[in-house]
């Protein structure tokens, strides 16, 4: 049969002709190039991507010597919470170190936002100290900046998502600016305590989930932490492929944050003191894996070329060409990983 087994972005299995796969690869790279105003993949890169997409094996891997580091977000939420395996966080980290051979791991709480962690910081410090005594791999502490939590009813500030549809634009912008001040304080407080408790690094996960103000708060917090602890390793994992302009007029180092794509975002993270950048490229659930991976690789290639720090591409459900399914299928995951590393030149995943 000349048709190739592949999937759509929602994980649905399908078969496509080689011609259709090639067509989608070309469309995908062009879409990324148009949106990001970056170069499309070359013919040689598309040829290689086509080979990866059409390899007959169920799972594929990188060539020897191209192995990369893996880092995590929501690290200790994966086995005990999402997979429902009855183990504590310490056991989850040891399982990653000793059974999965993970290069690094992340300690995180189920209330995975810096704001929520203030109240239980003493418990988190104790957990980190205990884990550091038992592990060899670097263990990060991670959570989300999650600016939305500062709005009513969860916080003291008016909700800009409610103000904006009412066309109360100035009020919505002021609310975001106020929330940033709270977030910076909380992030710096929690990250400082965890770093002093032995964390090998601090992970900011889903930066920008609440828009450009969320990004600016994180950049400012990173700057403060870097000044306070010059050796701190900060990982900056983004929420989406471009910074959502909920405010639209926020600048960092003279650059407007809203609308920045990964190759531009990484420069902001670098300036703020990040050591690792977690690029995110959204998966379109309606499009084919070929279309999504060509797009993801195009963005990642531009990002790694622009970056001076390692780029660890997010390859979880719904990002990095991984299908939007609870348990992403290995055929798509392994092909996405291979392509992002070999063609996108990702430093890690």
């Amino acid at each position, binding site marked *: 049969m000349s048709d190739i087994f592949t999937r*759509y*972005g*929602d994980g*649905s299995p399908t078969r496509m002709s080689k011609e259709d796969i090639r067509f989608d690869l070309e469309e995908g790279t062009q879409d990324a190039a148009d*949106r990001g105003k970056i170069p499309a993949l070359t013919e040689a890169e598309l040829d290689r991507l086509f080979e990866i997409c059409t390899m007959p094996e169920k799972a594929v891997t990188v060539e020897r010597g191209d192995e990369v580091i893996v880092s995590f977000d929501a690290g200790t939420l994966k086995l005990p919470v999402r997979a429902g395996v009855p183990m504590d966080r310490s056991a989850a980290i040891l399982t990653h170190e000793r059974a999965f051979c993970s290069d690094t791991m992340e300690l995180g709480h189920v209330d995975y936002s810096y704001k929520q962690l203030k109240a239980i910081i003493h418990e988190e410090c104790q957990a980190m100290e205990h884990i550091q005594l038992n592990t060899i791999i670097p263990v990060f502490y991670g959570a989300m900046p999650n600016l939305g939590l500062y709005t009513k009813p969860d916080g003291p500030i008016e909700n800009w*998502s409610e103000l*904006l*549809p009412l*066309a109360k*634009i100035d009020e*919505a*912008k002021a609310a975001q600016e106020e929330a940033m001040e709270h977030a910076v304080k909380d992030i710096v407080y929690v990250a400082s305590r965890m770093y002093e408790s032995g964390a090998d690094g601090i992970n900011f996960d889903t930066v920008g989930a609440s*828009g*450009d103000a969320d990004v600016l708060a994180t950049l400012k917090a990173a700057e403060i932490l870097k000044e306070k602890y010059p050796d701190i390793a900060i990982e900056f994992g983004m929420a989406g492929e*471009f*910074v*959502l*302009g*909920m*405010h*639209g007029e926020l600048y960092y180092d003279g650059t407007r944050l*809203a*609308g*920045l*794509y990964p190759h531009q975002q990484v420069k902001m993270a670098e300036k703020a003191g990040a050591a690792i950048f977690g690029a995110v490229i*959204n998966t*379109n*659930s*309606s499009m084919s894996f070929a279309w999504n991976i060509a797009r993801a690789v195009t963005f990642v290639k531009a990002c790694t070329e622009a970056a001076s720090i390692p780029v660890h591409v997010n390859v979880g*459900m*719904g990002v990095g060409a991984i299908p*939007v*399914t*609870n348990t992403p299928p290995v055929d798509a995951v392994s092909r996405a990983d291979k392509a992002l590393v070999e063609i996108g030149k990702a430093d890690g995943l």
Partner: protein
Amino acid sequence: MSLEDIIAEARETILQCDQARAVAVAERAVAQGFDPVQVLSEGFSYGIRQMGDLFGRGEVFLPQLILSSEVMKSAVAILDAAIQGGTPQAKAKMVIATVEGDVHDIGKGIVVSLLKTQGIEVYDLGRDVPTVKIIEKALEVEADIIGTSALLTTTLMGQKKLEDELRKNGLRDRFKTMVGGAPATQRWADRIGADAYAEDAAEAVTKALALLGK
């Protein structure tokens, strides 16, 4: 000024969020006797869909999108009056909600803003809304369309539940249904029997108008 010029300027006023100019263009179109429906659909509505596309690419930002929808509303008010000859006409009604168990509603909020610019009366029930409440509201307001959003693969089934409940209660033919959200696709819409799927806010407007036969 020709109809083509009016249409081009109408689009521009939306893209530039220029309320005073939009009102002036709408008034000029009416005064010159141009078809208000054509000015609305090919001019202002086209402009708002372009804004939606630009927002989806990160080239315009939410405050601009909201401003442009306010500009659109001003123009629609003038053109609507001309279309109806001063007689109020029943508006199409749509009930929209994020399904039960799902608290994500940024995207839905944008869809609501754009739908309102098209003169559709939108009842936004918010997020984490049980199916039964959606149906109750749709019956209460005699909605034409029910739209549901889901961001999570785990809550996507809420959209199927709505279709099942509508069928079970003999109500399926009373409403058109639309689905959206990251894990939703046209394939999903076909599978559960929804009438339409929209990938983003701009497409939601196009599909809603198509369902309403406009």
